[in-house]
């Protein structure tokens, strides 16, 4: 049976990151956007954990933890804004909120 090495993790994280990235590019719904960014961050977390383990160095994991924390707070702020917007526009479609242009 094959040995799961660091590369597999990195590939996984790469795939995840691209998925998230695509989501960011394609999604029109604000909530989905947030999810996509979360996916990207978590992809990074995997990479950090893997690399940290590979080097036997803690700072990777540390970074991962901090990223999680930051992600959480981002969600908090993001959802706050999201709610306000929903109150204002009654929708989370990005095409609706584009009053400022030019």
């Amino acid at each position, binding site marked *: 049976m094959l040995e799961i090495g660091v590369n597999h993790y990195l590939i996984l994280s790469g795939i995840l990151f691209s998925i998230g*990235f695509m989501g*960011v*590019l394609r*999604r*029109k719904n604000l909530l989905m*956007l947030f999810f996509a960014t979360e996916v990207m961050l978590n992809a990074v977390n995997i990479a950090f954990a893997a690399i940290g383990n590979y080097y036997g160095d803690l700072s990777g994991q540390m970074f991962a933890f901090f990223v999680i924390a930051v992600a959480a707070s981002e969600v908090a702020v993001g959802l706050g804004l999201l709610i306000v917007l929903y109150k204002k526009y009654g929708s989370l479609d*990005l*095409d609706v*909120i*584009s*009053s*400022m*242009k*030019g």
Partner: protein
Amino acid sequence: METLVYIALFSPFVGSLFAGLLFGNSPRKMFTGWVASALIFVTFVSSVTLAYHVATVGAIHVQMMDWISAGDLSIPFGFVIDQISVTMMVVVSLVSTIVHIYATGYMDHDKSYNRFFAYLSAFVFAMMILIMSDNFAGLFIGWEGVGVCSWLLVGFWYHKADRPFEENPSISPSWAANEAFIMNRVADLGMLVGIFLIYWNIGSLQYDVVFDAMPHLADGILVSIAIALFIGAMGKSAQFPLHTWLTDAMEGPTPVSALIHAATMVTAGVFLVIRANPLYSLEAVHGVSMFIASLGTFVAFYAATMALIARDIKRIVALSTLSQLGYMFAAAGLGAYWIALFHLAAHAFFKALLFLGAGNVMHAMDDELDIFKMGGLKNAMRGSYIYMGIASFALAGLPIMAGFYSKDAIIETAFNEGTYIIWGMLVITAGMTAFYSFRQVFFSFHGEKRYEALGFHPHDMYKYVLIAMAPLAALAISFGWFMGYYKDFIYGLNETVQYEMSHTTHHWAWLLGSIVIALALTGIFLAWKKYAGEGENAWKRDEKFEASFIYKLLENQYYVPKFYDQFIVQPYTIASAKFWEFDKKTVDGTVDDLGKACLNIGDTSRGMQNGNLSSYLNWMGVGAMIIVIIAVISSVIG
């Protein structure tokens, strides 16, 4: 003596300021004219004294102050009083004095009487500078100065409106003035170039230094200097092809024509050549001198032909001036500088007289210029009749008259130099001269009283004016008698100015002279037969002849003015307009387009700012991808 020089120079200036600054805008004051005339007379007196001094003691050279000094160039206000300049001074001041006095009568009804005298005296001042200066720059001051004054005086009646060329060949006084100024400017450029050449090759503009250095210069340079200076001379002395302005300049008041466009200013060119005789007599520039002579001869003939059929009394005189200038250049070109100068003086006298006489006629005929409308004025205005008769005899070069000596000498010179073509043309021209000058006399004073039909009541000029003209008449008769004295006088200058006929010429002199006289007499006789008759054999217009090509050609001055209009004036105007278009559309347009382009780019690129978050994200994401891709590629490459 120095003070005398300054008096001679500045008293006209004082007169000009007096008339101009003090009374320039005030209503007519007769005494301004008298003051001005008196001051000019002062100049005359001092000039004569100076002439005596030059003859007895020798030339005077004074330096007043520095004018321009930059780099190695230093130009002083310096004046040299030698045989040449003093001759001119005497002639100029004498003629101007008389013209001034004449003008007090002639202009007495003009509301800008004071202004007129301001200009006239200013002109004399400028002329004096021109004559007396001891360097080329100073000469140029006077050169331009007389140009401006002639501009002011020709355009004196500036209020007259433009008329089409067909009605009036010289469209209007202001037009004629501008034409004169600009045409002279063309020549002045040549003069300036000459000055530059002299400076960079010799390092000074002082006559004495320059003429001493001349012989050591390379031929090419000498030739170019000679040509450049002569171009300048051509402008002022209205030599072909820069001659058209002179006839148009007749728009000015007649005293102006008499003074500026007959006696003095137009001879400045001749004066320049004579002044530069050490240059023109050099072997290296012999070609140029020959060219001068031939051009002069050509102009003499050319102008005479036009004068044959001219109807405008002043134009006739102007054309005769032109042709006489041709004589002078012929003489100067052939190296007989002193003869040229002598003819210049003689011509100044009788031509001024002729003009003033013509002025009287105009005055009598209420400024009518067309000789076809005149005739039989001899009883109405006897004084003028006599004067014009004398002047015309002198001009025609009949014996004992001034013209006889001076002009004959020139023709002899041509013979003496062995340039027989020139000689021949000059002789023929002499004949024509006699014809057209008397044609004009007979037209105006003999024959039917054509003016009566037109309701003119001619009356002669004021007595004092006629008396004032007497000295001119006297000189027109007698000036030639002093040729011998004058020769001794001017020979004192240097040897290049000296000129002697060879023995053969002396031997044939009587024959040559009699040929000229014969031709002149035939001319007069023809004129008499054709124009002087009364009753049944009175002159009648000859439509057939007037319709002929020759007549048209001469009437239109060989179409030279038309040519200038067609091929210089109009193209220039059109080109200017085109350039303006180009400047606005293309040159300025490109600048504006650049600005517009910026704005457009801004406007289009603003499209990315469409306010939609997802497109922002796409921009960002795509940007990031591109950067990463570039990164990968470039890392793979190198």
